[in-house]
Every structure is written in C-alpha cells, then in structure tokens.
C-alpha cells in the first residue's frame, strides 16, 4: 500500500512507512508541543514532491504562521493558506456579521502580508459551514485551474473551530460531517486538536483513522519532548513513546530511542482501572483462602504455612505487587484446598467432639 510521508523520517518509521493516504488523522498534544510544526513539515514534504498543500488556519493569522516557520528554511512559497481566523468580535450592533465563508481568502504563502484588519462595517465570523464552503470552492477551483487536486490538507486547529463555532451537543454532528467532508476530498488531512480532557470522549479522536500524540514534560529544568502513535487503523505501528527534538531542521524523531517514563500522565492510561481490577481479584482470592483456613481450623488441620502464605500475599498486595500477591494467594488456596479435601476423604479427625461445621460453610 502506498504511504504518505509526514516529512519526519523517524515518525514515518514509527508509522511503518507513513500515513495511509486520503484519510483524516488527528495530531494532539499540549500547547507548544510541536503540532503546528509537524503540520508545516508535512505540507513542506508534500510540496517538495510536487503535491499541492492547503493550510486552514484558525488559531493564528497567516502572517504569524509565516513568520513562525521562517526559521526552518522550508520552501513553503507555494503553500496555500486559507485564512479562517475570525475578526474582532463585533460588540456594536450596527456592524453586520458575515460568515468567513463569504469572502474567499486563499493565497500562496509568499503572498501573505500583514494581518487582515477587521472591517469597520462588517465582522467576519467563522462557522464550520463557512469553512467547508471555502474549502470546497478552493478545492474544485484548483482542480479546474490546474487539473491537480490538493493532496495534503491541515486544519489548525479543530479546538479553535469548536470554541469559535460550535456549542452544545451539535458539535459532535458538525465534526462528524466535517470529517466526512474531508474524507470525501480524498486528501490526507492532519487535524490539530488539543486533548482538553481525557475523561471526555471527543468525536475527532474516535473518528480519526489515526492519532499522533505529542508529549511534553519537565525533567528538572529541561523540557523533554516525545511522540507516540496512539492509534493507526489498517497498519502496524511502533507503539512505544519515542523521544523527539525540535531544531532548525524541524522535528526529528529518534525511532530507536527509549523514553524514560517519568511523567505521571504518560503511564497513567487505563492503569488506575487495571490496578483496581487486579487488586479486587487478589482480595477475592485472599478472602476465599481465609474462609478455608477457618474451615481447616474447625477440622483441626494444620495450616500454619498457609496462614504465612496469606500474610505474605496481603503484604504484597499492600505493596501493590499484584502479580506476586496473586501468585502467593493462589498457591495458598490450592494448598489449603488440597488439605481440606484430603481430610474429607480420609478418616474423620481424631477428636469427634469438635464443633459441628458451621452452616453456610462451603466445600
């Protein structure tokens, strides 16, 4: 299967060669982690291969985007910028509000000048619909002009789009429709999105066909950067967190590098739940062993060693060594079970005056 290079060799290696074309992907991570840089590198790599690229900017005005990438020395002159930043909010009533989609502002990167001044008479606002219309128009105009379709699209960022334009539950349907729209354009799309809350399931994360996630943590006074692939449909991928750096050459990922897991949140995915499950499991086994030990006491069977094993298991449980705890507990259970069965099968215990078995005692 053909793959689309992200422009970062190390990341391509992690992806098993690159992205599967014509699908939308999510790039996530905290602010300043390198999401926009990756997006620009992705577009630059396309341009270098003669693939047309389009950047839809909602977060920063085009002139700032341009200024920010000068340092990397990529040739982005032919990159199309679609300015979808909203105007200063109109607080005065007399200014009419128009949708950003009604004015087409798509231009080559080298044509990007000063920031667009908010108009005094009308205020531009951004809507998904407006952006979609603008994108579609540009896409097909280009197809007519040059018989060439956009191969790579970046939306920077969906977080902004959501904040500006979507409120309430409808945003799910809007994102679904927007992603469907991007899929139908058959361009490889990077959607930048900040993960605001891992407890909330955001539409773009489960609808995207893959997720590249950036991590940033403070180690002493050094910022450590890392990247991971969280999901990638239809392909194998490297599932480790790999170290990366940002230099004048852009993003470099060390696809062989090992990242020490220092940051708590890196390791925390789902751990809490599993820990609780395993903990419950061990507790259940220990409880059943304790019951059997009681039975054994009643039947006057020596189980001191089992008692020791159980206390060892309890200790391991407290130390959160679940595997060892479980092993010890399971061992104790099999030993005590065996003894109880042997006692039941063999002659009754010598002193018959022992208390009768309590009601409800199992086995």
């Amino acid at each position, binding site marked *: 299967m053909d793959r689309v290079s992200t422009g970062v060799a190390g990341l391509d290696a992690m992806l098993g060669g690159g992205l599967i074309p014509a699908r939308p992907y999510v790039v996530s991570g905290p602010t300043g982690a390198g999401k926009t840089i990756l997006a620009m590198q992705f577009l630059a790599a396309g341009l270098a291969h003669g693939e047309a690229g389009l950047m839809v900017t909602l977060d920063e005005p085009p002139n700032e985007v341009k200024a920010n990438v000068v340092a990397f020395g990529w040739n982005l002159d032919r990159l199309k910028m679609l300015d979808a930043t909203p105007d200063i909010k109109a607080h005065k009533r007399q200014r009419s509000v128009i949708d950003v989609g009604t004015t087409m502002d798509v231009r080559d990167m080298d044509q990007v000048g000063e920031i667009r001044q908010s108009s005094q008479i009308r205020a531009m606002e951004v809507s998904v619909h407006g952006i979609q219309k603008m994108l579609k128009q540009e896409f097909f105009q280009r197809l007519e002009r040059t018989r060439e379709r956009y191969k790579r699209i970046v939306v920077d960022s969906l977080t902004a789009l959501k904040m500006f334009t979507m409120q309430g539950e409808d945003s799910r349907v809007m994102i679904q429709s927007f992603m469907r*729209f991007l899929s139908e354009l058959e361009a490889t799309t990077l959607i930048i999105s900040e993960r605001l809350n891992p407890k*909330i399931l955001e539409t773009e994360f489960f609808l995207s*066909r893959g997720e590249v996630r950036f991590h940033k943590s403070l180690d002493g006074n050094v910022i450590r950067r890392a990247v991971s692939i969280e999901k990638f449909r239809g392909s194998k991928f490297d599932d480790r967190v790999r170290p990366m750096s940002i230099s004048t050459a852009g993003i470099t990922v060390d696809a062989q590098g090992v990242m020490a897991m220092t940051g708590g949140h890196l*390791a925390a*995915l789902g751990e809490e739940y599993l820990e609780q499950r395993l903990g419950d*499991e061990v507790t259940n086994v220990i409880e059943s062993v304790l019951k059997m030990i009681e039975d054994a006491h009643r039947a006057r069977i020596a189980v001191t060693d089992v008692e020791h094993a159980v206390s060892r298991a309890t200790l391991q449980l407290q130390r959160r060594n679940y595997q060892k705890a479980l092993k010890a507990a399971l061992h104790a259970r099999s030993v005590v079970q065996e003894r109880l069965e042997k006692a039941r099968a063999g002659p009754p215990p010598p002193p018959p005056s022992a208390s009768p078995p309590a009601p409800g005692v199992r086995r």
Partner: protein
Amino acid sequence: MMNGKIRTGISGLDRMLHGGLVPHRPYIVSGPPGAGKTVLSMQFLLEGVQGGERCLFVALEEPPNEIKQNMRAFKWVVDEVEILDANSDIRRFEPTPVIEISTEVEPMRMRQVDERIRKTPDFESHEVSVHSLQQLLKTLFIKRRYDRVVIDSMTALKYFCMREFEESLTTQSFMRFLAESKVTSLLTVELPEEGVAPPESFLARGEIRLHRLRDESGIKRFISIEKYKGSSHDEFVYPFEIHSPGIVVQVTETGTAAAA
C-alpha cells in the same frame, strides 16, 4: 457449539466466556479508540461466515472502502461479510432534500465494496437517524435471516444519530430491537481514556472490555469480561495481542492474570 453457545472466533475469548456467547442476544464490546474493537467484531463475523452463517457489519464510523482496506492487513477472507454503509453524508446547511437512509441503502458483500469513498450527492444527502436505521434493519431482517450483526459503533449511533431522541431510552430500545430480532449482535462502545463507562454497558447482556495500557515497552492490551448474564465466565483480566491472524488472547491454564 458448546452447551448451546456460539464461538466468537477468538479461542482465548471463548474460554474466558466458558464456551462462547449465548446466541440471539446483544453484547457490548467496549474500549478506548485504537483498542481493537473493530478487529474483534470482524473476527466474530468471520467465524460466522466460516460456519455458513449470514453476517452483517453496520458501519457508522468509517466508510466501507477503508474498512475493506484495513482488513487487508490480516490474513482473512472477508469477501462474504455483508456491510451496510450507515455513515451520514456531509450535512447540508441549505434546505435541500434529506433522504432517510432507510429508503435507499442495501448492504453489499465486502468483495463488492468500491476502493474509493462514496461521495455525497450534490443535491441531496443521506442522513442516518437511529429511527431510520432501525427501520432499515427491520426490513433486512425480514427479507433474510442474519445470524450475526455488528454495530460499529454504538457511540457513533448515539453521538450522531440521536439528535432528537433521549439517548438512554433510545439505546435501550435499539438493543431490545436487536434482541427481538433474534440475532447475536456485538455493539462496539468507545470509552474515554480515563473515567467512567457510558450507560450502554448496563443495558447489554454482556460486556467484553478491551483495555489499553502504556508502559516503557509500548502499548499493552488486555481483555476482560465485565458482565455476562446467564453464564459463568472468567473473572480475570488477560493480555492479548493483535497479529496478522487477528486477536490472540493469552489465557493461561492456571488462570493467573498478567502483570499490569
């Protein structure tokens, strides 16, 4: 078949389920994005196809052409699985005719699925609502007898197709509909990476949960049975891996759970 149960297509999972799934009931497969829900569901359908059963995959998250491509990574013959494209088109913002899915769409065999994505027509768009999907499935179930059905995903159905409906009630009624239709169905549910499971889990007869855990050596995957009405089942959390033959659950003889 073992004590009337049907196999899931994953031998380790069947052992965890003490033989497999009780037929004609809806089950939940839950897990965070990228955990392997779609792969598990597809294996469930393939097992059916191999036994000469009629199987339907209802796609609500991804277009069928992509699902077909994704399944090429596995050494499976998915040709006979039927797939119903229940992805909504791009929404119209102008008042143009909206076609309810129930009037138009027919499932296709996987082998007939086009390589390219279906395009939203210019002057009308298909919209999938839970109501129309249910109608459509009802008609299909009357026309031919499906044994296994996968809804991928219930979350998409809830997020995108229940705009005018009350979510829990509608979900419950949809599951009731599947149960009455006497199909064995798997409904996938997306879980957030942290936090609590959505209420769908409480409504099904059983829940298979997939877990994803990161550590230094990469992503570890685990599987557990959270609930299974009418049958005993394994209580442990087992590790699993996704290889080219599909999901492989490492169920150990001693029943020892793997380390977290």
